[in-house]
C-alpha cells in the first residue's frame, strides 16, 4: 500500500522514500508543501475519515473502536456519555483527553449543528445520548477535528 504510487498512503508522495534518489535531500522529515499535504491527506482520508479502518466488525475481523466483531456496539462504548466518548476518541489518537474548550466546542457542534444525539431526561436533568445510528458519523466529525490539530503531527519527547 505504502509503495504503490497510486495509493494515498504512498510514502514517496510524502517525501519519505529517502533512498530512491541517493542524496540531495534534507536530513529531516520533509515539510515541503506537497509532502506535508500528502501526509495530511493520507492520515486524514485513509485512516481517520475511513471508518472501515477502525470501526470494527468489518468482515467479522475483530473488535474495533466502536463495534465488536459481530458489528454490535461495544458495551462499554454504549455506556459512555458524549463527553466521555469524545475523550475516548482523543485518547486513542492524541493520547490526551479533550480540553474544556474542545469539549464545549465539539459538544455544541455535534449536538446543535449535527444533531447526532437525543436528549434524555433523568430525574429532571437533561443530557445528550449519542444515537446508536450516528456513532460512525460522530466519530468521523471528531477525527476530522483531530486531523486539523497541528499537535497530531508532532512527537512530543519525554520530559516536555
Amino acid at each position, binding site marked *: 500500500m505504502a509503495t504503490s504510487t497510486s495509493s494515498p498512503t504512498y510514502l514517496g508522495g510524502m517525501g519519505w522514500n529517502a533512498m530512491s534518489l541517493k542524496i540531495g535531500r534534507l536530513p529531516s522529515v520533509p*515539510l515541503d508543501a506537497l509532502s506535508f499535504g500528502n501526509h495530511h491527506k493520507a492520515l486524514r482520508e485513509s485512516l481517520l475519515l475511513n471508518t472501515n479502518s477502525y470501526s470494527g466488525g468489518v468482515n467479522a475481523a475483530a473488535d474495533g473502536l466502536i463495534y465488536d466483531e459481530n458489528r454490535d456496539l461495544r458495551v462499554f462504548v454504549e455506556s459512555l456519555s458524549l463527553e466521555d466518548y469524545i475523550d475516548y476518541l482523543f485518547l486513542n*489518537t492524541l493520547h490526551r483527553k479533550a480540553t474544556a474548550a474542545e469539549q464545549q466546542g465539539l459538544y455544541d457542534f455535534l449536538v446543535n449543528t449535527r444533531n447526532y444525539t437525543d436528549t434524555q431526561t433523568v430525574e429532571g436533568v437533561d443530557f445528550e445520548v449519542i444515537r446508536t445510528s450516528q456513532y460512525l458519523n460522530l466519530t468521523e466529525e471528531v477525527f476530522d477535528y483531530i486531523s486539523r490539530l497541528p499537535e497530531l503531527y*508532532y512527537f512530543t519527547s519525554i520530559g516536555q
Partner: protein
Amino acid sequence: MNRRLFLKALAAVGGGAIIPQTVSLSSLSSMYKQANAAINYTSVNISASSVPSVMPQIINIFLYGGPSELAGNLSNIADIEQNSQSKYTDFFPGIVDSQDVATDGLVTPSGFWGSNKSGINNEADRGAGGDDMQFLLDQGQMSVYRTMMKRKNTSQSHRESILMSQKGSLDIDFAPGFGYKLAALISENRALYEANTSLADGTPISSLANGVESLVMPFVSVLDGDTRIFDKDSSVTVPLLFNGISVDSALNNPFSRSIPNPGADPVAEEAALDAIVQKSLNESSRDYSEVVEAFKLRQELADAMGVYDTADLTVLPTIVPGDLSNPDFVANGNSATLAYLDTSVGRSLRAAVTLAIENPATLFATVGGAFGGWDDHNNGVDRYPRRMREVFEALRVAMMHIKYSHNSATQINSLNRPTDNIIINVFGDFGRRVNLNTSLGWNHGNNQNFYTLGGARPGLRTAAGSDALGKVVGNTNRVGNAGEDRQFTKPATGSYEFEPMSVAANIYKYFGVDYASSPISASNPDPLTSYEDPNNAGQFIDFGSPPIEEDPTKNGAV
C-alpha cells in the same frame, strides 16, 4: 482493521513521521547560518534600470547523479573510441560516423548522438536524443554549452557537487539554496520590481494588492520535494509562498480538504471546527509553528490550485500550420498534435511548463527527481541513450508547447501572453569520464554539458535575445592515458568555460542583477555566489562566479 491495528497504523503513519519538537528544520538552518555572515540582498548590484520589464520564468531541470556528456558532445568520439577500455562501436556501430545513410552514422551535424538515418533496425540505431537536440538547435530554441567545468572545487562526490550547483556557491554547508536566494533577492528588493516590472500576461506587479507578496506559487518544485535549491536563509524572511512549493506532476490538488457528512452550510461547519482548533492553539504553550505554517500553506495552495485540479493537462496547443512545410510538424512525426510522453519525465515537464504558461507568477520551478538517477557507472550503454532520448523528446515537446502558446489563448486560463520569457536549463551534479569502462558505464568527471532552452526575449539573455540561441559553445579535448579509466574531456585551450555556480548567477542576471557594470573581483565579491571563510569574517575563499557569457561574439559560439 481492529483497534489495535488502528493504533499501530496511527503510530506508523502519524507518530512515526512526525517532527520532534526539540529540533526543527528552521532551528537546524539557524544553527548552520550562525557560522557565516548573513547575505545582504540589498547590497547586490541591482537597480531600476537593471530589473527586467517582464518577469522571467525559469524551469530548472537537475539530473541527479550526473549524466554523461556524450549525448550532446561526440566531437571527440574518434579519439575516445581509439583509447577507451571498452569499445563504443561494439554497441553502437555508427557512433564514430557522421549521420549519413551510406555509413549508418549517428553523429549529427553539430556533434550530437543522433539516430541512424538509414533506418532503425535495433536499439543501437535510435541514438541518445541527438535528433531532437539538433532540431532544437537548428530552430534557434536551444544552445548547448560543452564546457561547464569544475575547477574551483574538483571534488567528484555527489553531495558536494549537488550542493555547489544547487546553492550556487562553493559554500556547501552554510549557503542557502539558489532558489531561496532568488526569492530573497526579489523580496528584499521588492520596491524595484513593484515599480518597474510586469508579469508576462501584462499585469504590473504594482497592481497586485500586496505587490510581490501577492504572487501565487512563484517558487515551485515539481515532484522534487525538499530540494536543496530551496534551502532557507534564516537571516531573511520571505513571503510564505516564496518558500518553494512542491506540486505533483498532474497538478492535482493534494491540498484540498473535504469535510465528512456536510450539512446545509459546509463552509460554516468547517469554520466552526477551525474555530475550535484556533482556540485550542491559543491555549497551548507548545510551539507547533512549522505545522501551523504548513496548514496555512495548504489552505492557500488549495485555493490557488483549484483551477488545475480538474484541468486536462494533456490538451496542448496544435502545431500550425499542420503540414510538411512546417519543420515542427515534421519533427513531431508528421503530426500537428502535441503530446508529452506519458512517463515520469514527460508528465513532470508537462506540469512545469503548464504551470509556467498558465501562471505567469511562477517565476522559478525546479524539476529533477522525476527524471531519475544518472549515476551510470554500470550498464550505461543499455540505460543512458534511451533515457536521454526521453528527456530530449520531452524538451522538444515542451518547447513547442511554449512556442504555440505564445500570444495565443492558453488552454486552461485563456491567457494571451508572450512566452519568450520562459527559460529551461538542464544540467546535473557533474560530468562523467569518457572512457567506457569494463562495466560498460562511466565514472565521475568534471566537465559536463549545460543545455539552455527558450527565453529569446530581447534583453533577457542578450540585448537581441535570440542571438544567444541555436549555438554550440565550448570545445573539448580528450585527456588521459589509453586503456585506462581516467580519461575525460576538458575545455580546449582558448575555449570559453564556466563553473556550475555560474548557472545560479545567470539566473540572478535574468532577474536584474547587474554583473556587467560591476564585475566580480577581490574588491567586489558577489554577495550571492561568493564563499566567505566561516572562520575569518571578511576573508573570502571564493569571490563568486560570474554569469554565463551568452553573447555569441564573446563566447566563441558556432
